[in-house]
Each structure stands twice: as C-alpha cells, then as structure tokens.
C-alpha cells in the first residue's frame, strides 16, 4: 500500500527523520510508535504531502506519491481542530468536498455517519457548543467520510471517554475489515499488541524496531511461564530438575507466584513436575508487552 524508502527530514536545528524506511501492507493496521518528538508527526506530514522530505521517496500503491493521492488518504491529526463558529453538518460537508466528494454524495454519507454514531441531533449545532468528545466524533467522521483506502490516525483515542473510545475503536476495526489500511500513530502503548498487526518503533528520528506484531512478540518469547499456586514451594526447591529454572518467586495476598524458564521440554513437563506438590491456580506464558520491549529498546539506544 505505502512504501517509505530512506526518508530524511532535517529542520533548521534538528533532525526529525533520518533514513527511515517502512513497508505498510494492504489491509494492515500499522502501528507507528514512539515517544513524543520521535518524528512521528513529521513522517505523517510527509505522507500527507504537507511537507516534502529532504531525501528519500514514498510510493503509494507502486506509484510515486503525488497530489492526486490526497483523496485516497484520510488524516485525523493529533491536534484536532474544527471551525468553532461553523455548524457541524456544514463543516463535515465542507471538509468532505475538499477531499473531492460532490456535495450530494457528501450529504448522504454524512447523514449516514451521523445516524451510525447517534449524533444526528447535532447537525445544526455550532462546534463551539459541543463537548470535546463530541467534537472528536465529528472530526472522526470528517476523516473517514470520503472512504479513503488509507487512513492515518494520530492518537485517535485521546479525548474520548472509555465508552466512546470503544465505539470509535470498533468503527476503526470495522473499516479495517472492509479493507481500509490504517496507520496508527501513538505514544501510548497499553494493549497496542491487540490492535496493530504490524508496528514500527521510532526514537530520536531513527527506526529501532519493526515487523509483524506477532513476530516481534515471538522474538521476545523466552519460554518462561508464570504459575499462580497455593502450597509450599520451598519444600521442593532442591528437587527442581536442571531443565527448569526458577527465575522469581513472590507471595501475594491470596496465592503465590513463581516464574519458571523452561530450558528443555514443554510447559506440560513443568506442570507434571509441579502437580504432586502444589495446587496450581493459573498458568500463563510471560511475554514482554510491546510497552516493555519499547522501554527496553529506548533505554538501550
């Protein structure tokens, strides 16, 4: 869908992006992750052709990126903004027409979206009379109304309460199921692995990690399992075979938790060793979250 090749962008006194390359596959939800000031917004502005890179090139579905592709891209900027004194409906129609829709087409689609998000009563309200969350919904509609095959969402969930955030999340997943490719930029990494199929971590203008979310997580698996249990582990401490390594042990309020690294064999072997001695409450593989990986990577670099 979008191929970013060796992009560099230098501002007067700092480098925003240096030699960044990314491949965004069609149909993916691509996470663009990085701390504030890493260069995410600079990259997004280049993709939107708001600014041009100093060197490097971008290809949109195999063609060099051109002004005609603007209609195929939807953009929800991090800094949300609407004309405060303009009526909500008029505003959505205006922005849709700027993206190339006819007024008639824009009207039908806008009405549908307002119905879908249950905000049809707001059509003639002025933006300044809406709450921040309401404005976000309007802005979201304005972003997706021209049904772009490629959607850039910069921190789409900030400003929403949990209920509305969930509604918007479902709408995004819905669009993705219908074939929309999504570039999702954020610095908040909680639960990001559930949402993004691919991701790139950038820090201080450079890419430090990228790939399929699954592959990244797999590469950080260490065959380590956490086991919650009731019983006396100390009694069998000395009997633990060599191919299991007890990495940590702590006592919680209701049960105890031990972490084993399996050097040889599978999780079933571990369980069958433990079963006679303690009562197991739960087992889960301990995979570092993207957040952990991210923090680890950033502090390394």
């Amino acid at each position, binding site marked *: 869908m979008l191929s970013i090749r060796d992009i560099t962008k230098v501002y*007067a006194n700092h480098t925003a992006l240096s030699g960044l390359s990314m491949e965004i596959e069609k149909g993916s939800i691509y996470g663009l992750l990085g701390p504030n000031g890493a260069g995410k917004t600079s990259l997004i*502005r280049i993709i*939107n*052709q*708001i*600014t*041009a890179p*100093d060197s490097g090139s971008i290809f949109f579905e195999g063609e060099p990126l051109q*002004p005609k592709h*603007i*209609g195929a*891209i939807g*953009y929800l*900027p991090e*800094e*949300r*903004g*609407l*004309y*405060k*004194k*303009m009526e909500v409906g008029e505003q959505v129609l*205006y*922005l849709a*027409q*700027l*993206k*190339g829709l006819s007024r008639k087409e824009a009207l039908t689609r806008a009405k549908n979206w307002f119905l879908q998000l249950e905000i049809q009563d707001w059509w003639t309200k002025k933006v300044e009379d809406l709450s921040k969350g309401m404005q976000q919904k309007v*802005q979201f509609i*304005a*972003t997706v109304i021209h049904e772009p095959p490629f959607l850039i969402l910069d921190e789409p969930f900030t400003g929403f309460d949990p209920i509305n955030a969930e509604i918007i999340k479902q709408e995004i997943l819905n669009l993705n199921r219908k074939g929309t490719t999504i570039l999702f930029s954020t610095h908040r990494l909680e639960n990001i692995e559930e949402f993004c199929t691919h991701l790139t971590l950038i820090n201080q203008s450079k890419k430090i990690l990228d790939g399929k979310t699954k592959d990244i997580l797999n590469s950080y698996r260490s065959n380590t399992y956490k086991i919650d249990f009731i019983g006396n582990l100390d009694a069998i401490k000395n009997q633990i075979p060599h191919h299991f390594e007890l990495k940590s042990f702590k006592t919680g309020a209701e049960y105890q938790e031990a972490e084993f690294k399996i050097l040889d064999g599978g999780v079933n072997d571990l369980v069958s060793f433990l079963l006679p001695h303690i009562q197991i409450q739960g087992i889960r593989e301990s995979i570092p979250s993207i957040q952990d990986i991210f923090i680890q990577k950033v502090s390394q670099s």
Partner: protein
Amino acid sequence: MNKILLIIQREYLVRVRKRTFLIMTFLVPLLIAGMYGLIFYLVLNQNQLSNQQKVMVLDPGKTFGKNLQNSNAVLFQYTNQKSPDSLKKALLQKKFDFLLYIPAGKDTALSAMGGESQDPRGIQLTGQKQASIQTLGQIQDEMERVLKNRDYQAAGIDTAKLNRIKPKIHIDNTVITAEGEKSSDSLVSFIIGIIASILIYMFIFLYGVQVMRGVMEEKTSRVVEVIISSVKPFQLMMGKIIGIALVGLTQFLLWVLLSSLLSPIISTGINAKTKTEISTKTLQNTSTVNGSSSPGLEMLKALGSQNYPYLISCFLFYFLTGYLLYSALFAAVGAAVDSETETQQFMLPISLPLVFSIIISSNYVVNNPDSTLSVWLSMIPLFSPVVMMVRVPFHPPLWQLLLSMLFMILGFLGTVWVAGRIYRTGILLYGKKITFKELGKWLFYKS
C-alpha cells in the same frame, strides 16, 4: 481550482451571513447620511438655533446713534441713562443679556499722536455669562461698519456709490488634452481624491485585518492541519484572501446602492432648504454679499461632468490590487504568530506605509498632484493604491497611470509569493516566538 472555489465560497458565506455584516452594511450608510444631514441642518439653522441676544447699548457720547443693525443673533436696545450702575442691576434681573457701555470721550492718545481717530475707547460688554465669539464678533462688526460709514462721509466719499462698486471674478479652470479642452474643478477633484483614498485606506485595513484574524483562527484552532492535508497552503491562503475581497466588494456595492437610493431623499430635503435660504439671504444682503452666482452651483456642475467610469474603474483597480497586496502580508502575519498579542510587532511595518501614504496624500499630494514626489510615490506599490487614487481625479498622464498599475500588479505578485512562503511554514509551527530574521529564513526553505 475547484477546491479554491470551495474555500472562497466558505469564506464568503461565513462572513456575509454574520449579523455584523448586515448591521455594517445597512447602518453605516444610514449613519453617514444622518451625520451629513445633521451637519447641514446645523450649518443652515445655526442662527435660529442660537438664541437672539438682547444687548442694551449705553452710549452717552451718542457716537452710534441708533444705527446699529439687528441680526438673528443680536438685538440692540438703547437707553438714555447716563451711568451703567443701575443698568447692571437690571442685567442681574435678566431684563437683557448684555450691557454694551461706550464711554463718552475720544481716543485722546491717538489724537495726541496726530492721528485722525475720533473713535471711542474703553468699551465694555458685560453679561452674566461670557459672550460667545459669534456675538462678540457681530457687535464689533456692526460698530466698525457704523464708524466706517461715518468716516467715509467725513472724507467726502459717497457711500452709495462705494457700495455699488463690486468687482466679480470667476476663473474657469480648463484642462487641455489632445482630444480637446475640458473644464475641471480643482476643488471637486480634491474632494473626490480625498474621499477615494480614505475609502481605499479603510477597506485595506478593515478587510486586511479580517484576513489576518481568519488565518489565526485556523492556526490556533488547528483546523489548518486537516485542510492542508487536502489543499495546498497557497490555495488556502488565496481562497481566504479572495473570499474576503468578495465580501468587501459586496459591502461596497451595497453601500453604493443604498446611498444612491437614500441620497435623492436627503438631497431634495437639503436643496429645498438651501434654495429658500439662499434666496432670502440674497434679498436681505444685496449690499453686502459679493457674488450672485453661487459656488455650490458650479461645484454641482463639476460633479456632474466627472468621468465616472474612469474614476470607478481606477478605484476598483487600486482597491482590489491594494487589498490583495496588503492582505497577503496580513495573512503572512497571521500565520507567523500564535496569538493576537504577538501580532503587534509585525503589524507595525505593514501599517506604517499605509498610514504614511494617507497622511502624505491628504496633506501634500492632493495639493501637488503632479510634483515629482507625488509621481514617484504613486509608482511604489506599497503607497500607490492611496496616493494614485488622490491623483486620479486630477487626470495624470496616461503613461503614469498605466506604469503605476503595472508596478502594482508586479508588486502584488511579489508580495503574494513572499507571503505564501512565510504562510506555509508559519501555519504549522506552534509555540515558537518568531523574529524577523526567522521570517527571512522561511523565504528560502524548500517546501
């Protein structure tokens, strides 16, 4: 192109639908008409409006007899009493407004010096309040007139003959061109020039600032980020500038329309009034009024003979190009700053040439429309919209007009280029204090 039209449409409709636009459009002509009406009324009726002052004349020397003539402002009364003291009591009781005391006795000082003067001195005007300049002046004029007549007679001059001598001069000012002679009226050109330049100045400021506000609104509300992901910054800037220009034109045309509807009503009212006024005055003062052909009539004739298509097309040209030039600069300022308070330092260099040109136009250019300085100023695009508009009614040479217009177009293109470069960088830059040096750098950034 289609998108620019959309932007123009939005900018136009948003402003025209505002209540303030309607109020401005309908109220301003009414206010102006009302103001002129009031001024005319005051000028015509000032005598009736001010109360006639009763002046008691105490003239024991009988220098003036009873020859002082009454007017709308002053009514002379005479008394035979010798001393002012009892009259001062009557003054306090408000039996009359002023006491004019002319002591008996001659101007001995002048006579001693060999002068001929027989005039009284030590004259006092006493009242419960200070006499107005008008009252004082009228009394003084009357007294001087009486004494002058007395002195003429003493010198053997026939006053009746003297009053009949009334030389009358009127210069018809004509302009010769290749096509022939045309009569012109400098005063009318003067007035038209001043009015046109003030209108242009006002429009540029009014709508230039609107452009700046609009740009700042988009920047501070962050709408701009959404919009320039669909259109180029330059398109957005030009769309806004053109949209607001159309608002200005609409307002101007509505004003012209409204005042042409209103002015017949007002002018017939004024005309009826002035005609009776003039005729009664001429009847009353045939001896004192100089000309019988009124200068107002000449001016009306000159106003009627103006080449309006020429004036209006020049006005529209300089209005539009001047506005485009300045509003591009205003747009650049709006894009460079984060808040209204920061605009000050950038507003100054923009307003300075405008203010300079209106001051020099109304004080110098209008009196010397063809001087070297005026010609040069009318060639420089920052000044020419105002300065040239003052010169236009005086019919400057065609080549100067065309050259000035050419420079204006070039100047406008240059400014738009510069402003566009500042705009596209500034509009996406938040939270940074901008200096002039910084602005200079932006001109040479790659897009």
